[in-house]
């Protein structure tokens, strides 16, 4: 939902207090994420169930002491599957958003700081890619290439890099006018070194905000695609795929649908809130 236009401009040199506040926020968030990952690892180790082994004796059990979130139509423990599913949803989304970011930032940097013809070409290409609604393009790509996890990753990378490219280019164009970039040119530093030393560090905060945002969007896209049958395939425990399984038992075992959906909701909400906080921290000096 964040649009390119509302993202912060380049982080202008500001005084120390704001930088420390930002650093403190980043450290706190980092610690929070580490604690969460620790809990997650513990849950993976401690759960007595296997996510994919069917147990027909305990089919469709309601949430209780043995199965905290109940069992599905094959008797698999829903809580265990949700924990394993986090690996698919959050982990894959991480991989996809990083791939998209690398491609997009490279193109955006070269478009903003490189020769004019490359800028024109790459921006027309970006516009063309942008024209396809994300989900439609992802369904078409992964559907035509054959529904599988690999093709879904490919499809989602292909529909996500443009946002990074546009943001990077617009920030790069602003930086390009700065005196320190002119000075680096006059020192005849190689092009890649100017990008690496002078452009990238000054882009990183804006990119970080976009990246958290894209990460949570991708989680939604992965589970949506899996829900439609174009993503992670059953019997893998993916949140969207679990919802499809649960749909048939809507009346008798509604918890099969409720919990995976809640897992998506909470994860995406947490990431969005981190992103919003980060943006507020970055934007303050600009105001």
């Amino acid at each position, binding site marked *: 939902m964040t649009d390119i236009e509302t993202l912060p401009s380049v*982080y*202008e*040199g*500001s*005084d*120390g207090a704001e*930088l420390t506040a930002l650093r403190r926020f980043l450290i706190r968030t980092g610690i929070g994420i580490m604690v969460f990952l620790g809990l997650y690892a513990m849950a993976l180790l401690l759960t007595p169930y296997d996510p994919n082994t069917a147990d027909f004796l305990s089919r469709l059990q309601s949430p209780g002491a043995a199965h905290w979130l109940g069992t599905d139509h094959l008797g698999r423990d829903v809580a265990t599957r949700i924990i394993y599913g986090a690996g698919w949803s959050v982990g894959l989304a991480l991989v996809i958003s990083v791939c998209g970011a690398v491609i997009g930032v490279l193109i955006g940097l070269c478009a903003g700081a490189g020769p004019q013809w490359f800028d024109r070409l790459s921006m027309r290409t970006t516009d063309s890619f942008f024209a396809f609604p994300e989900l439609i393009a992802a369904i078409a790509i992964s559907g035509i290439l054959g529904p599988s996890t690999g093709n879904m990753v490919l499809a989602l990378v292909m529909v996500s890099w443009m946002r990074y490219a546009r943001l990077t280019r617009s920030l790069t164009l602003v930086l390009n006018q*700065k*005196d*320190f970039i*002119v*000075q*680096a*040119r*006059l*020192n*005849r*530093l190689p092009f890649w070194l100017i990008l690496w*030393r*002078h452009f990238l*560090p*000054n882009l990183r905060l804006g990119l970080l905000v976009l990246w958290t945002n894209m990460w949570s969007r991708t989680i939604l896209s992965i589970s949506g695609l899996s829900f439609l049958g174009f993503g992670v395939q059953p019997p893998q425990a993916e949140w969207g795929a679990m919802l499809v399984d649960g749909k048939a038992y809507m009346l008798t075992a509604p918890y099969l649908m409720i919990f995976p959906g809640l897992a998506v909701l909470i994860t995406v909400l947490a990431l969005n809130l981190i992103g919003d906080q980060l943006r507020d921290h970055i934007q303050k000096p600009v105001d």
Partner: protein
Amino acid sequence: MLAVNSLCVDVSSQRLLDDISFTLKPGECLCIVGESGSGKTTLLKTLLGLMPFSQGQISYQFAEEDCQLNPGHQYLGLPGVSWVMQNPLAALNPLQPVGRAVAESLYHKSLSKQKEAERVAAAFRKVELSPELARRLPSQLSIGQAQRVCIARALVCLPEVIIFDEPLSALDAVVQKQIAWVIDGIKTAHRLSYLFVTHDLGFADAYADKILLLRDGCVEAYQPVEEFFSAPTSDYGAELIEAARILGSLDAPAAMAPVLLEASA
């Protein structure tokens, strides 16, 4: 020696600079004066190869090299010429320690790490900065210190000419004075030539050897400094001098003082 010979710059059939000629001899300070939009910055950019010129020549003879640039020649920065920009905070990467910013000017000399650090420290001392400041970010320096870092960056590659683009106008009065003093000090210590863009006629009067007055991209006056102030060849120059005197940024010459006193009596 740097010589510019009837230089013209055109951008999309509009002439920004028309027939500019001047020479800069070793140890000389040439002040370029003119109102905003008169082409001062365009001239600097052209000299540094950031903008192409359409007619004329730029030639330079330094200890190491001797070269003539003609229209259409692609170049970026002249060897032996450094540039100090107007706003030190814009001229430094906010996320790069200032020592590394200075060291970047030595990139093509491919020195060893240690040698490079020595050169940077020496440059810092020349502008009266402690070399320990090299690890700081620009935001952790005062604006005067930041401008000294920029001068150190210009000095570190041992240039023969330094181009100053209004180095004092972003600073407040006390800092201006200190920086002006540093700039003057290193000139005599290292026998540098200065190309100095300024609005401040008082500064030009005090430090310049020659003055080049630009207006609308043309040379309005090109005279030694004493002659410029005592016998300006152009009406526009005379007007500027008068305005500066009224505003008090330029002292009235001694010969004129009694006249003024008589008038007021």
